[in-house]
């Protein structure tokens, strides 16, 4: 019983929080803080217990598996941290009760998904998660139709694909139990296999923003408050990954339908490349991060698609890691937005002077995102490459590498455009973000640092959860990576080496001519002798990657979004035309009756 209670408690608490906010803002914030603390505490101390009951002749079953609890850790931690972050971030806004109601509902929905052992309850929680996140996407009240409805429509396409799969599975196997479906999958006919797995894949691909179905993501991520976007991109999109992992591994790898896995991997790789390219040319930090998220989710799809042990390992590790670093980055973007009210690169600059803690958290996250040592990003990248190498995916690895190299471009753009560059006077009033916003960022940065050297901390969980997916329970050493060919990386040596050399040279360079080393303002630059006046600013923010755009613009011209829009318009126009059936003339309606009667006669006489 205790399983379902956690969700009911969250839902109940959500309503209580709503009421509390209606009464008093401070009381509401206390309620939010309480759940943020209670959620991880309860999750990590309670004893899991399975539970099931009958609804409408269907059996709903609940219980964590070792696989889903991996994602639950992410949801719980990120959920708690984003809740904490939200308290100061959202404090100036109205309708806070409504916001937190939906916030908690989506956390509850996610945990519900993870503890669902049958498809119907999975779907129910999936939809709860979807509409609560939709309500937050439109929370700001801006672009509600353009962004919100679009999000809802794509989510609905995904969810309904899942629903179709569910009813078909229910028909074929007589039950909606997830593990039963996977166990009996091998006995299905080929058509059934392809149909059900395609549908499920579509469903999960929408949430994880895989390429042809990603259209909603950039705008939805941008439009919701940043404190929620951290969760949205960090944890909510991982629900798609969760489902995709189940489908990809259980179905394709275990039943020999490798083709689908390959297709998934290719889709993921194309997603990674194109989304990264798009991220490079964004001029809004939130959009940049949103596209970056799509790209990262593409990597995860690649890992799942190739379906080898290393690949799945990479995917799961990256899924967790992405939650951390994209959480930090969106929080940093939120902190910037909170303090300056701006999110466009053309309006931001030089914030490192005012928000150093935010900068260093973001720097840590960016290094992890880019996959550079000494942080944990390297491990995820390494795992993916090794997986691709050992499974001999020659061209996928090139695509992934292209994407991850291009990722440096937007990484630099983010750091430079926001934090570096020439200072402007208009940031003089800007202060460092409130402590409650910094704490989650810093905590997660430490997490990234720790995992960078000791990935074994989380490998233990991943590999035990992978045994649920049918892989051997391989024990990984705390800080040594080994690929399938026996090549190893000693992370401790690498990172210690780097740190030590860094420290040595830091001492040297700081001590040499120490007294004569001056710090000057960012307007004191070599500018052909021309002094920069107070009103001038030479910050480089326009056409940031213009040459690169010239190279790849032939590819980027074609956007799937245009096609979707014209398709949707076509439907609208078609029915607009069809509306003329209802002429408004009663006699015409009478004529329809007669015509219908005639047709019915003919049909009746011939068919019945």
């Amino acid at each position: 019983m205790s399983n379902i209670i956690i969700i009911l408690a969250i839902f109940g608490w959500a309503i209580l929080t709503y009421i509390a906010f209606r009464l008093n803002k401070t009381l509401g914030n206390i309620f939010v803080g309480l759940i943020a603390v209670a959620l991880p505490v309860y999750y990590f101390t309670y004893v899991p217990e399975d539970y099931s009951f009958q609804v409408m002749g269907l059996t709903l079953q609940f219980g964590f598996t070792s696989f889903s609890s991996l994602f639950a850790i992410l949801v719980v931690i990120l959920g708690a941290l984003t809740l904490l972050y939200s308290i100061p971030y959202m404090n100036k806004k109205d309708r806070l009760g409504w916001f937190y109601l939906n916030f908690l509902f989506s956390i509850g929905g996610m945990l519900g998904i993870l503890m669902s052992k049958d498809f119907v309850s999975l779907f129910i929680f999936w939809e709860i998660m979807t509409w609560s996140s939709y309500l937050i996407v439109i929370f700001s009240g801006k672009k509600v139709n353009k962004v919100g409805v679009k999000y809802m429509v794509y989510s609905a396409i995904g969810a309904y694909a899942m629903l179709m799969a569910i009813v078909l599975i229910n028909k074929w196997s007589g039950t909606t139990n997830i593990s039963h479906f996977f166990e009996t999958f091998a006995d299905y006919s080929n058509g059934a296999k392809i149909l059900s797995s395609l549908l499920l894949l579509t469903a999960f691909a929408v949430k994880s923003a895989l390429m042809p179905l990603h259209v909603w993501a950039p705008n939805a991520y941008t439009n919701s408050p940043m404190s929620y976007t951290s969760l949205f991109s960090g944890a909510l999109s991982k629900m798609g990954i969760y489902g995709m992992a189940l489908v990809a591994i259980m179905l394709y790898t275990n039943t020999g339908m490798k083709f689908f896995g390959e297709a998934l991997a290719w889709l993921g790789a194309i997603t990674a490349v194109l989304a990264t390219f798009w991220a490079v040319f964004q001029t809004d930090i939130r959009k940049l991060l949103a596209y970056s998220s799509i790209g990262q989710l593409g990597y995860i799809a690649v890992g799942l698609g190739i379906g080898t042990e290393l690949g799945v390992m990479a995917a799961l590790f990256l899924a967790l890691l992405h939650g951390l670093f994209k959480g930090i980055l969106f929080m940093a973007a939120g902190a910037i937005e909170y303090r300056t009210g701006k999110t466009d690169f053309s309006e931001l600059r030089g914030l490192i002077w005012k928000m150093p803690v935010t900068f260093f958290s973001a720097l840590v996250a960016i290094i992890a995102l880019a996959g550079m040592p000494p942080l944990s990003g390297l491990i995820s990248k390494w795992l993916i490459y090794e997986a691709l190498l050992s499974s001999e995916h020659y061209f996928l690895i090139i695509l992934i590498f292209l994407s991850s190299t291009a990722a440096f471009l937007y990484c630099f753009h983010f750091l430079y455009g926001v934090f570096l560059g020439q200072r402007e006077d208009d940031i003089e009033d800007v202060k460092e973000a409130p402590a409650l916003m910094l704490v989650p960022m810093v905590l997660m940065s430490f997490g990234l640092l720790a995992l960078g050297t000791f990935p074994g901390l989380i490998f233990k969980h991943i590999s035990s959860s992978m045994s649920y997916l049918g892989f051997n329970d391989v024990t990984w050493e705390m800080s040594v990576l080994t690929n399938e060919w026996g090549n190893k990386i000693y992370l401790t040596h690498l990172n210690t080496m780097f740190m030590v050399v860094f420290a040595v040279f830091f001492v040297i360079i700081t001590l040499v001519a120490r007294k004569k080393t001056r710090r000057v303002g960012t307007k004191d630059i070599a500018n052909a002798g021309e002094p920069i006046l107070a009103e001038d600013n030479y910050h480089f923010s326009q056409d940031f990657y213009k040459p690169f755009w010239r190279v790849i613009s032939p590819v980027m011209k074609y956007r799937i979004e245009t096609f979707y829009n014209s398709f949707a318009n076509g439907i609208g126009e078609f029915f607009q035309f069809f509306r003329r059936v209802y002429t408004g003339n009663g006699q015409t309606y009478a004529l329809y009756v007669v015509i219908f009667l005639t047709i019915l006669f003919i049909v009746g006489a011939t068919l019945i």
Partner: protein
Amino acid sequence: MDIWKLLLTGSVTTVLAFVVGMLYMGLRRKITARVQNRVGPPIYQNFLDVMKLWSKKSSINHGFMQHVAPLWMIATSITTLMFIPILNNGSTFFTNLTFEGDLIMLLYLMVVGSLGMALGAGQTGNPNSAIGVTRGLTQMVGFEIPWVMALVALMIQHRTTTVAGLLDVQVQSGTWLMLSSPFAFIAALLAIPGMFRYSPFDIVGAPAELASGPISEFGGKYLGTMMTNGAIFAFVKLTLFVDIFMGGASNLGFLLLKTFALYMFPVLWGLVSPRFRTEQAVRFFWGWPVFFGVLGLIQAAI
């Protein structure tokens, strides 16, 4: 793992890399001068430059990131150097950390310096620096692709991801990989000038356009560190390439010979070429080099 031994051999390797790299860069200046019918500076000129820069009596920076940028780079270079086999004869002296990392890690390790550089350059507030960084990153997207294609072809074909493993393959079989995998070699070779950023790929520094680009605000000890790093990193790149494609070297003489021969390729190419524009450079790398890279991959697949 003996930490003291690592300290000793690591320092020796670093010094070796520094000296060799400096001399190579001096030679480049000399050769350039000779090609241009000049006498040219002495080949030890670069040592003098570095010494001068380190002995500057003042230096300025624009902030913490600029302060750490050069040492971020040099830390990267030295760390990378530790993971690269210098000799192939199994001598334990130059082993360092060779067997504790692999190529994928090296690929990423090698760009860490660029990130530090980019951040430092970004903090100076000089628009030329930022433009230079964007150019450099764009160019990197260009040349990394054929380079990685070549590496992937070799790694999959020989089922190892370590440099030492690839060296072993060459020592065992007695043929260099540049002969057994010619297409991959050509692809990687064409990517080399991009890595060295010599003309026609000197779009990052582009003195006439960007006033030396990212480093335009670096002077004194910072510039000195960067030049030191440049020497070490050149050695790193050359040795890595020699290890992978040209069978490594059994002693330092062969190492110098091979690396120098390799080094001459970007140098001599640079002497006769004007500068590309950024998009031209990327298009170049995504043209023939990628074509050869694909051929290399196909060869490896077959």
